[in-house]
C-alpha cells in the first residue's frame, strides 16, 4: 500500500501499540491533535488517553518521565516536536538514558524511542531546520537512526521500538510527503506515486545497523542519509557520474562493512549531510574511511555539508547542500 512517511510512521505506532500494551506514546500535541505533523493521529482515539497523551511543554519532562517509565517496564515512544527543541532534554538523554544500563550494572534499563522531525528545506529558519545527529552519535549508549523513505521509516521505527536501549529517531521532515531532491523550485513527487512509498501493511522490522546501497556505481562512493539520499541521487545523475550511493539509515551502530567494501571498490568517497560541517557526523565517516580504506583512496574524502553557521531563513537554498553543490564536489573528486 502506498503511504507517505507520516502515514508509515503512524502505521508503525499503530501496529506496535496493538501488539504490545507496554508501549505508550506521548509528547507535545501528540494526543488529541495527533501531532503537529500528524504522525500520531488517531492513536489516542484507538488506544485511549492512557496510552497516547499530550504533554506539557517540557522536553526535559517528556524524556525524564519516559526514562522513569522505561525503568518501570513500559516502552515509551516520545515525540520532540522539532529536533531543534531537544536540547532542554539533552541532560536527561546523555547523562541518564544513555548510561542507565551501564551505570547500574544492568539493574535498570532504558528501552525508549525519542522521535523528532529534523532537517531543513521548509523555510523553518534556525529553529525548525536543524540536524543535530552528531550530538547524539558522540554519546556512548545511544543509537541513532534516520530513515529516508516511508518503507524504511516504518521498519526502522518498529526495530527501534523493539530495541532494548534508547534510540534517537530523526525524521527528515522535508521527506514526510515526498522524496525531496533539493530542487526546491520543482514540485515534489508525492510518496503515493513513488515506489518507496510502497509500504507493507504488516508488522515488519528493518534491522538497525544495516545500510542500504540505493544506487550501485563504480566511480565514487557517496555516504549519506535522510533527505540527502535523494539529493545525492539527483546530483549523481545530473553530473553523469557513476556513483555508488549508500543510505546509512543507522549512524550508530554503523554498517562499516558496507561502507568499506564500497569505498575499496570505487576508491573515492564523498560524504553528504545537512548538518554543520565541523564535528558533524561526516567527520566521523571521513575519519573511518580514510583509516580503513587508506590504501584504496585515490582522492581525499570530501564532505558536502551545511555551512558552519546557523540555518538561515531567507537564504535557505544557499545554505542547504543541494544537487548543484553536491554535483560540483563529485566532479571535483573525480578530477583528482
Amino acid at each position, binding site marked *: 500500500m502506498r503511504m507517505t512517511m507520516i502515514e508509515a510512521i503512524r502505521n508503525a505506532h499503530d501496529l506496535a501499540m496493538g501488539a504490545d500494551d507496554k508501549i505508550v506514546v506521548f509528547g507535545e*500535541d501528540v494526543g488529541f491533535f495527533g501531532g503537529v505533523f500528524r504522525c500520531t493521529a488517531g492513536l489516542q482515539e484507538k488506544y485511549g488517553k492512557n496510552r497516547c497523551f499530550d504533554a506539557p511543554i517540557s522536553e526535559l519532562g517528556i524524556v525524564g518521565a519516559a526514562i522513569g517509565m522505561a525503568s518501570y517496564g513500559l516502552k515509551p515512544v516520545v515525540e520532540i516536536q522539532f529536533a531543534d527543541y531537544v536540547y532542554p532534554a539533552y541532560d536527561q538523554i546523555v547523562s541518564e538514558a544513555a548510561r542507565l544500563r551501564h551505570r547500574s550494572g544492568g539493574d535498570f534499563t532504558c528501552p525508549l524511542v525519542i522521535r523528532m522531525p529534523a532537517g531543513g528545506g521548509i523555510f523553518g529558519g534556525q*529553529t525548525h531546520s536543524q540536524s543535530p545527529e552528531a550530538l547524539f552519535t558522540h554519546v556512548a549508549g545511544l543509537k541513532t537512526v534516520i530513515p529516508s523513505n516511508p518503507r524504511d521509516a516504518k521498519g526502522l521505527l518498529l526495530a527501534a521500538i523493539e530495541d532494548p536501549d534508547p534510540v534517537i529517531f530523526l525524521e527528515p521532515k522535508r521527506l514526510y510527503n515526498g522524496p525531496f531532491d533539493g530542487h526546491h523550485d520543482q514540485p515534489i513527487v508525492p510518496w503515493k506515486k513513488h515506489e518507496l512509498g510502497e509500504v507493507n501493511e504488516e508488522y515488519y522490522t528493518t534491522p538497525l545497523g544495516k545500510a542500504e546501497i540505493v544506487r550501485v556505481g563504480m566511480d565514487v562512493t557517496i555516504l549519506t542519509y535522510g533527505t540527502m539520499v535523494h539529493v545525492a541521487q539527483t546530483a549523481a545523475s545530473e553530473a553523469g557520474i557513476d556513483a555508488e550511493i549508500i543510505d546509512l539509515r543507522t549512524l550508530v551502530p554503523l554498517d562499516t562493512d558496507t561502507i568499506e567494501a564500497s569505498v575499496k571498490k570505487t576508491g573515492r568517497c564523498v560524504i553528504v549531510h545537512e548538518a554543520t560541517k565541523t564535528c558533524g557526523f561526516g567527520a566521523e565517516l571521513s575519519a573511518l574511511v580514510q583509516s580503513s580504506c587508506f590504501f584504496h583512496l585515490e582522492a581525499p574524502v570530501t564532505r558536502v555539508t551545511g555551512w558552519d553557521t546557523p540555518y*538561515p*531563513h531567507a537564504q535557505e537554498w544557499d545554505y542547504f547542500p543541494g544537487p548543484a553543490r553536491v554535483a560540483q564536489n563529485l566532479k571535483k573528486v573525480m578530477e583528482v
Partner: protein
Amino acid sequence: MHKAFHPLSLHVPEPGCRPGDEPDFSEFVIPRAGEARKPAHDATAQSMRDMAFSIVRVLNKEGEAVGPWAGDLAIDQLKAGLRHMMVLRAFDARMLMAQRQGKTSFYMQSLGEEAVSCAFRMALKDGDMNFPTYRQGGLLIAGGYPMEMMMNQIYSNAADPIKGRQMPIMYSAKDHGFFSISGNLGTQYIQAVGWAMASAIAGDTKIATAWIGDGSTSTSDFHAALVFASTYHAPVVLNVVNNQWAISTFQGMARGEAATFAARGHGFGIPSLRVDGNDYLAVHAVAKWAADRARSGLGPTLIEHVTYRAGGHSTSDDPSSYRAKGESSAWPLGDPIERLKTHLITLGEWSTERHTQAETEVMDEVRAAQKAAEANGTLTSGKSPSSRDIFEEVYAEMPPHLIKQRQEAGY
C-alpha cells in the same frame, strides 16, 4: 494492617470542550471590576496572596473604570492606547493576508491579546528591556517602532534588520527595548532576569520584563527565572500570558488544573497577581505597579494576564480541529479593543463614527507601511538580503574556516 488499594490510573487533563461541544466558561470565576484591592508597593507575597487567585479588573460591563486600580491614564493616553491596539490588529490582518499571498513563509498574530502588550509598554520607560515571545508585537507598536521595519523582518527583505536570518516575527530592536525573539520557548525568561541582575549590578535604574505563554511555564527556563529572580531580588516583571491555549492543548495541561499560574510565584515569595488581560486599564495599572516595585528595588513581581488567543496558534495550524467553534466569542472577558472603545464612548470622548474613521486611518497607515516595506522586497520577490550574510556575524570577526566556506559558497 494496610487497607487494600485499588489499581491506580492516569489522569490526563482535557479541556471542557473540543470541536463539536458547546463552549462553556461557566466554571471560570470572574470577579467584578473594581473589586480587587491595590496593595502597597512594598506588600509581601504573603500579604497579597489572594490576588493570585482573583483578577484585577477596572472596566466594568458598562464601560466605566472602577475601583482602586482605575484612574491612572489621561484621555489622550487612552486614545493612544486604543490606536495602538487597532494598529496592531490591522497589522496582523494585513500580514496574515500577506502570508496567504505567499509573500512570506509564516505568521503569528496577537488577535484578542492586544491589550496585554500595548498597555504594558506604556508603563515602561525608555531603556527598560523587554524579553518577549512572538505574541508581544504590541510592545513595538506602542513603543513607536516603525511598522515598516517590522514588515521588513516579516518579509526577510533587503531592509530586514536581521538580514533574512530568522523566521517572520522574530524581531530584534535593542534601541526600542525589545530583545531578539527566540524560536525556543522559555529561554528569554531567565535571560530577562539576568539582564535585570546586570542593571542592579551596574547600579542602573532600568528594569527588565520577561514574557512567557501559559503553555511555556512548563519549561525549565521558567523555573530558573523564578529561582534567580527571588534569590537576587532582580528588578524584573515576570509576565505570564495565559491565553488559554498552547497549540492544541489547553492551559490546564501546564497548570495541572489546580492553583493558577500566578500562584507559582508564591513558592518563591514573589508577589503575584492576575489581571484581566483584555482590560487595557487594568493591564496598564498592574504593569505600572509592578514596574515601580522593580524600580524601587523591591524585586520581582509575577503577573498572570488572563486573556484568550482568538486566532490560530500560527499560520501552520487550523484551530477548528482542536477547539470548539464559537469558543472565542464565548470568551467572557470580551474583546480588548471593543472594551476600551466603549469606555471612551462612555466617557464621551469617542464615538462609533470616530472609531470607524480611525479604522480607516489605521488601515491606510498599515497599507502605506506595507507598500514601503514591499519596495524592499518580500520573501519571494524583489530585493532580498545577501547570501554573504549567512556567514557574517556568526562571530564578531569571521574566522578562517568561515572565510573558506564563504569562498567555497562563491559569495
